[in-house]
């Protein structure tokens, strides 16, 4: 009996453990190994190049540009996919009494569509020369800027497309979190005549922290993966890498140019940056919430 109890949990974990090892741990180790070589994915020989690939990640101007774009993406995604849905879910929860269910459904519908379809529809809608939006702009005396030629604007449009897709999902998660806050605490603040903004700032936000942190991490990690699709469908990273990010650039290096070494170095660097971000997040954000 005693023996069984010790072994059983491991056996239960084994299937997941094996899958994780095969599909996550081994590939990451192999990627790390490949990042020291110059290889085109199929040639029988791999040339060892030491740290060259890593040096290139930081010295190559294109890589630098792509890294900067990635931070721009993260900031925009945070605003569009985290702060805006959070504000709106707070408004729906505490300022609007009716139609909560309807908002949930309306906001959620786009997340059912495939992002490829969404990207194609938006690419057509926002075509700067002959799309319907450009037409409306022209009719009202404005000119829709040719966003496909400007890296910054292309990034904004791509983030808006992912926002269309992700918004509803994040909104529902946050709203559900808000719903789980005990009603008696909220009611107590009304009786004590505490202003709503103070109630939200001092009670609701801290109590909803765990959900918010989950959505925050999701926004950054998943958001950067989501933008891959519209980048691939609409701009393919252009103009001149202006709308590319590290994930798309890794893909371009690995599977379009077959520069496996460079791509692996870029992937490992990205992995490390995210690891540091997560560590900081756990250390400072989650750690503190325990004392509150």
């Amino acid at each position, binding site marked *: 009996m005693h023996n069984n109890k*010790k*072994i059983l949990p491991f*056996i239960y974990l084994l299937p997941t453990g*094996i899958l994780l090892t095969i599909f996550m741990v081994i590939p990451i180790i192999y990627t790390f190994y490949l990042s020291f070589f110059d290889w085109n994915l*199929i040639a029988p020989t791999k040339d060892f190049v030491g740290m060259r690939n890593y040096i290139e990640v930081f010295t190559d101007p294109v890589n630098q540009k792509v890294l900067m774009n990635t931070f721009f993406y993260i900031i925009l995604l945070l605003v569009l996919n985290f702060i805006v849905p959070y504000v709106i879910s707070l408004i729906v929860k505490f300022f609007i009494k009716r139609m909560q269910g309807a908002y949930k459904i309306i906001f959620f519908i786009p997340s059912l569509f495939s992002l490829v379809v969404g990207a194609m529809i938006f690419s057509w809608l926002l*075509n700067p020369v002959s799309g319907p939006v450009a037409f409306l702009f022209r009719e009202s005396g404005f000119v829709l800027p040719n966003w496909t030629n400007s890296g910054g604007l292309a990034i904004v449009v791509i983030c808006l497309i992912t926002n269309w897709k992700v918004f509803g999902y994040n909104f529902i998660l946050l709203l559900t979190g808000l719903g789980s806050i005990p009603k008696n605490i909220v009611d107590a603040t009304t009786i004590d005549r505490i202003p709503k903004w103070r109630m939200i700032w001092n009670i609701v936000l801290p109590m909803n922290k765990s959900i918010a942190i989950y959505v925050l991490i999701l926004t950054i990690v998943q958001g950067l993966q989501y933008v891959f699709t519209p980048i691939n469908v*609409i701009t393919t990273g252009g103009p001149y890498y202006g709308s590319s990010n590290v994930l798309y650039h890794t893909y371009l290096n690995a599977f379009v140019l077959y*520069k496996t070494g460079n791509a692996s170095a870029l992937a490992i660097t990205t992995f490390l940056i995210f690891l540091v971000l997560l560590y900081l997040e756990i250390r400072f954000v989650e750690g503190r919430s325990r004392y509150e």
Partner: protein
Amino acid sequence: MKTKYFKQFLALVGLALMAVIFAGCSSTSKTSANAVTHITYWHVNAQTQGGATVDELVKEFNKTHKNIKVTAKYNPNMYKGLMQNLQSAQASGKVPDVTQVGWAYDNYFSSNFKYMTSTDAAKKFDGNDKFITDHFTTKTLSFAKDANKKLVGLPYSLSTPVLFVNKDLLKQYNIDVKSLDTWEGVQKAAKSINEQSGKYGLYIQEPGDTWAQQAIMLSNGADIQKNGKAAFASENGEGAYKLYQEMVTDKTALHTPWAQGMDSFVKGDVAMAFTTIAQASHIKKGASFNASAIIAPHFEGHKTTVPVGGSMLAITAQDATQQKAAWEFEKFMFKTSSSVTWSKGTGYLPPTKDALESKEFKDHVSENPMLVPAVNTLDKAIPWTSFPKNGLQAEQAMIDARDKILSGSDISSTLKSAQEKINAQQ
């Protein structure tokens, strides 16, 4: 002791699970007893791009060849996607038998994959290479040769760039179609249309390659490569890009990704579009104006020269019986009737001499006059530049140069640095 047994147990279970997982990956197809050879054909034709024609041809082949069974497999994402799949196939040891290879992947394919050259196949299975010399012109065959002059495959889909024009707009703003023979004339016409209507005069395709841009440079007498080294940063190459950049800067030419650019042309917001003939059916279906096509323009004092587009069929089968079956299948695909069916279904030009001259194809052309300039451009076509080493990275360097120049960078230094980058890798 307990922990030791536990570890052994864990290792055993782990191994067993691994075995189960990997067993699923390696199901092999074997030739069945009644001597039917199974081969697979990898292509890139989605249902909207001739996929139905592929199925039709394969079905007919299987019907007429009792001892061979071909299975067609569609690979998404065009030639790039197919190459990616071929790599994983090579890694797992289960490769297709006949494969469509895009011209741009010519050298990459020949130096990294195992294949049988068409010449070897013809000599081994027919005893001579008469089939090849009978059906293809020397020019057409030159498209499919790699840097070592080996015939990697047989040319299958051929395309050339043409200038599509919106005849209604040209008429409205008094542009003579004859003046569009030269790029200088195109620039003038675009300016005139832009000044009178505010519309864009021209769109030049900007996909993930510089095929169209190479055509413009070639038609100004520039070389893309010379003896395996990049050579486009010449006076003529710069001249070609100068006109292109001027047009983008003064907004007479539209600079935007391919799908959006074509959309704008089809909607009538752009008067001319320089793109592949494969777009003809899309334009015919979508445009509400009178659209037509003319031969690719050249610069004054130079002749029209364009790189050929499309793909070849390569034999990737490893086993002798399957190679033989693959060769049979290829020969069927190059029969006149098959080639013409293929051309009708996809919009590509047929690769063989006899198909190009057949009545069936000529009837098809007279029903689709937009094909005429494309057919006439074939003898002005040269192989798509494929550098011997790191060809895909070389193409990317040219794409980067294009995008930089169109965003306003200095032409001379941008082309030079792209050329140096490519040559440093050769």
